[in-house]
């Protein structure tokens, strides 16, 4: 096989992998501090894409200003903030009541929230998808990478996602703010006994993880069509990524997300029929050999 074909598939794999990375990163951050597997993550990713879509195509006419469009650059900021605040309300008024019970209740609640969000959006929007028209002109067209012509927007999405992942990793692993978060993951009661408002830390952390999902949703909007089920389809793969990487490792979530995107892209080139299942195949192998995941600590008790 020609090297250029492999490089081309690597780029395509990467452009899926960055979405896996951003979503599994948010899931890992949330799981670390809340011990909740956020099943609503896919729905909140979808909501992020819809904030961009509604902001661009619908909100103007709804408010009676037909010419108003919330641009893509604004959506990159507004959607994570709006969805992040929505997430913080969910945490503050629903999830928080469940911490005293088994983790399974948090999972059930978030699963229910995901179903409600998908159902509500399906009521008002086309399930087979709506095109997002807000992609800026500066990002349209293609660039020559030397070995292939690649859509400018996809390259932009890859670069932005990787920057966001690296900055998030750096803040958590290398700064004093991140030290509070790492300590909170390990022993929240003691962190609170030092005078740190841990309940507020948990709310903000959930909001941040959910905001990452919304940001991924906005970045996805110009690539995929915006549909109420876009998150439900993606999240199944993302959960496989999380299982492979192991819960709770920040760097592990990013690396696994990118790597599995690449694996998927290369499988597409080498043996296309397996490209949809290869991640689940890897998941089975990893679970047999390392049940805690590639980067997970074995805490079987």
């Amino acid at each position, binding site marked *: 096989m020609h090297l250029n074909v492999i490089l081309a598939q690597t780029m395509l794999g990467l452009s899926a992998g960055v979405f896996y990375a951003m979503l599994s990163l948010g899931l890992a951050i949330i799981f670390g501090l809340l011990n909740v597997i956020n099943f609503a993550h896919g729905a909140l990713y979808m909501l992020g894409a819809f904030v961009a879509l509604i902001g661009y195509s619908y909100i103007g006419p709804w408010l009676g200003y037909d010419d108003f469009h919330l641009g893509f650059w604004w959506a990159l900021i507004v959607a994570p903030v709006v969805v992040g605040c929505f997430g913080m309300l969910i945490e503050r008024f629903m999830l928080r009541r469940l911490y005293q019970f088994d983790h399974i209740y948090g999972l059930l609640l978030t699963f229910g929230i995901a179903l409600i969000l998908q159902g509500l959006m399906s009521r008002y929007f086309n399930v087979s998808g709506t095109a997002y028209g807000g992609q800026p002109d500066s990002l349209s067209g293609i660039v020559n990478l030397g070995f292939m012509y690649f859509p400018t927007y996809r390259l932009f999405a890859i670069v932005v996602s990787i920057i966001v992942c690296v900055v998030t990793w750096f803040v958590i692993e290398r700064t*004093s703010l991140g030290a509070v978060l*790492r300590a909170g993951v390990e022993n929240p009661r003691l962190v609170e*006994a*030092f005078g740190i408002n841990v309940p507020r830390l948990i709310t903000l952390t959930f909001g941040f993880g959910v905001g990452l999902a919304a940001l991924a949703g906005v970045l996805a909007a110009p690539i995929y069509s915006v549909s109420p089920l876009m998150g439900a389809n993606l999240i199944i793969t993302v959960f496989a990524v999380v299982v492979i990487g192991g819960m709770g490792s920040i760097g592990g979530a990013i690396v696994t997300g990118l790597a599995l995107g690449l694996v998927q892209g290369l499988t597409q080139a080498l043996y296309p029929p397996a490209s949809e299942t290869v991640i689940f195949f890897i998941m089975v192998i990893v679970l047999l050999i390392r049940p805690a995941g590639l980067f997970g600590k074995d805490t079987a008790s």
Partner: protein
Amino acid sequence: MPELLRIRDLNAWYGESHVLHGVDMAVNEGEVVTLLGRNGAGRTTTLKSILGLVDKRRGSIQLDGSEVINRPTHRIARQGLLGYCPEERGIFSRLNVDENLNLPPRLSRHGMPVEEIYAMFPNLAERRRSLGTQLSGGEQQMLAMARILRTGARLLLLDEITEGLAPVIVKTLGETIQQIKQRGLTIVLVEQNFHFAAPLADRHYIMEHGRVAEVVEAADVEAKEAHIKRLLSV
């Protein structure tokens, strides 16, 4: 000396199990008091109850005159200027020595500067970049003490700080407590080791079955030594 901590009729529960049955004690500013007693007498639970780290508590806990029994843990710590050193030391394994030291927020302006702390604990200074789990037991204990000295805490709650440590380290800890006391800090010390506690404390609370069974002033320790040892023996 003003009264810093006053506990009245404190009851505490872990889940369904009722652990404290009406504890009463008082600590004045600048004092060192100990909670002595056998395992399971309720000493650690008394410390945890002050911080709200039990499942349920009733009675009264006053810090510097204001009632805190219904407050959340982080507000109690800030309002009472508390420094807590838990029994398991609570060194965070994913944080290095510097990060562990700088984790607790400053509570007042009277905290020790980091350089002064490293001068007090030279072993830690050499290991600033080591992760918490790479430290020896003695170093972890030093770090757990150093960490709360930095915050400017006024009332230190120290739980079994000598447990499982070599005699030479226990001796160093004793000297550290003396230095802290001279700085005017107030200390509540949960201790198993009476010989460690006796020369340091102004007063001993001997606990039994979730209550204070006896209060012994430092001046009476010699006269009552046989009696105290009988209460503490297993």
